[in-house]
């Protein structure tokens, strides 16, 4: 009777269970792919240099330069990753790296770029 999670304290550090209890979920969010719409695209190097946004499929990498930026193969910043993903800064400093690709982009009514990123 009752739920499998309320019979006793289960959230002990170091305990690994397969039923969703224990000390870890087994998922490291640094190792997760994510997609987002980039911010400040119109102010970033790529748009100011080229006057346009990178096309769908353009390869991207992530760098930590004050904020987390998506960078095109030519080294130009395409846009900033939303602050909800600020945890990626810690991941990058811990040695994780990310590659990505533009999944949608356009210049009207204002420049926009959406992208997906995955850990290398």
């Amino acid at each position, binding site marked *: 009777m009752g739920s499998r999670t309320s019979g006793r304290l289960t959230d002990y550090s170091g305990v690994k269970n397969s039923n969703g209890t224990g000390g870890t979920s087994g998922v490291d*969010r640094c190792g997760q792919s994510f997609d987002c719409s980039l911010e400040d695209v119109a102010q970033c190097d790529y748009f100011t240099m080229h006057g346009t946004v990178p096309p769908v499929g353009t390869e991207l990498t992530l760098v930590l330069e004050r904020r987390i930026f998506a960078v095109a193969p030519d080294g130009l910043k395409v846009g900033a990753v939303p602050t909800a993903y*600020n945890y990626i*800064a810690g991941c990058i*400093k811990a040695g994780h790296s990310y590659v990505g690709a533009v999944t949608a982009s356009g210049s009207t009514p204002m420049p926009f770029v959406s992208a997906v990123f995955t850990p290398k």
Partner: protein
Amino acid sequence: MSASSATPILVVGEIIVDFTVARPGAECKLRLGGIVHAARGLWACGISYSVAAVCPRYIVDQAQRFLAAHGCNEFVWLGEVKGSPNVIVIGDATEVSDQGYEDLLREEKSVEFQEVGDALNSFSEVLIFPGKFHLSKITKFLSATARVSFDIAYDTEDFSSIECFAGRVGAVAISTSSPLFARVGAVDIDPMIEVATALGAEVFLLKENRGGSRLFDLRTHEVESVPAILSATANSVGVGDVYSAVMVGFRERGWKEAAWRGARAATSYAVTTYPDDFREDVRRELALSLEEMQDLGGTMLPWHARPSFHIYLAAPDFSYVDKPEVDRAVEALQYHNFTVRRPIKENGELPRGSSPSVLRAMFAKDTALLEECSVIFAVPLERDPGTLVEMGIAMASKKTVITFDPRRENNNTMVAGGSAAYSDDLDICINGLFIEISKLWMASR
């Protein structure tokens, strides 16, 4: 990196059993709460700590065992809770609106202090989370030279209860979800600042939920704004406790840096209920310098700035419609101190079959109200034409639209693509609202 001091902090307060009820997609969760939240934060940051716990007899052994496994140097059973199991049932763990705490048998609860001798006398840094006990009775257990900080979010009627610590107060922390804040600081924060200053406190921390936090240095009168990092909330219970504890734990780096580190640890605590995941996340966050954290930014929207950004509610808000999702959204917006403008409440509800001229007059009034507002929060329950037209008008006039589509009846390119945030999850929509109004607030400064 961990706090530089090896001297343990003493954390004083109640140990609670937190039970979060199951919801669709989320199982129930049983955890030790109260000061154990603070303890998890200190453990994750590698900060040395001990606890003086007030709790029922039945939980003492389990709490002691749990804390020993999570870095606690010394466990002192300071007081026995009688008449209550100290179990809190939590309805909404994401704090989209009021969390709906149910503190079982709270009116029957009393505390009987134990004989602890001078067990607490050696601690020079103390953090107290007030509970159902008289703070004045704690003073005799502590060294007269100990610096004492308080998180007065709950169980504090007014500041007079901590006056007995005047002159040796480090930090006073409070949350905007606190009943004391609602009574004393919700309209104007100055009275709280004045009282904290009179106590001789070094800093006053106001935790403003999804809008970040502000640290008032009462000695220099500087105000440090620490933004929130908004992502999907797993469980917000105890997040504020982690903030306060980690901030006090890092006090030797200066209160400003300590507040930033407390905030980041709290953010990590909100996204997982697994202690090892939390610690790993915190370990990476601690590798960032203060400057790096500041540069990364986040969402800043002070409590007291929110009412000036009026939010137009686009929804079938009619008296004859069964609309629990709309009511929940309104409750959440008001909980976060936003001004919700409800056209149907303000301009009236027309009977079916009203004449075209009456309909036109109402259309004009509603669109004028929409024009006055900064942001549109839409809750289309079905394929509601009125709501969709209001959203379209707002999008055409470049106003920000946040769409909470609880029944997923409108997952359409124009609806989702035209909304700054679109989801059937109110938590995500409230986050989106904070992010967008934060941008408006920043631009208005």
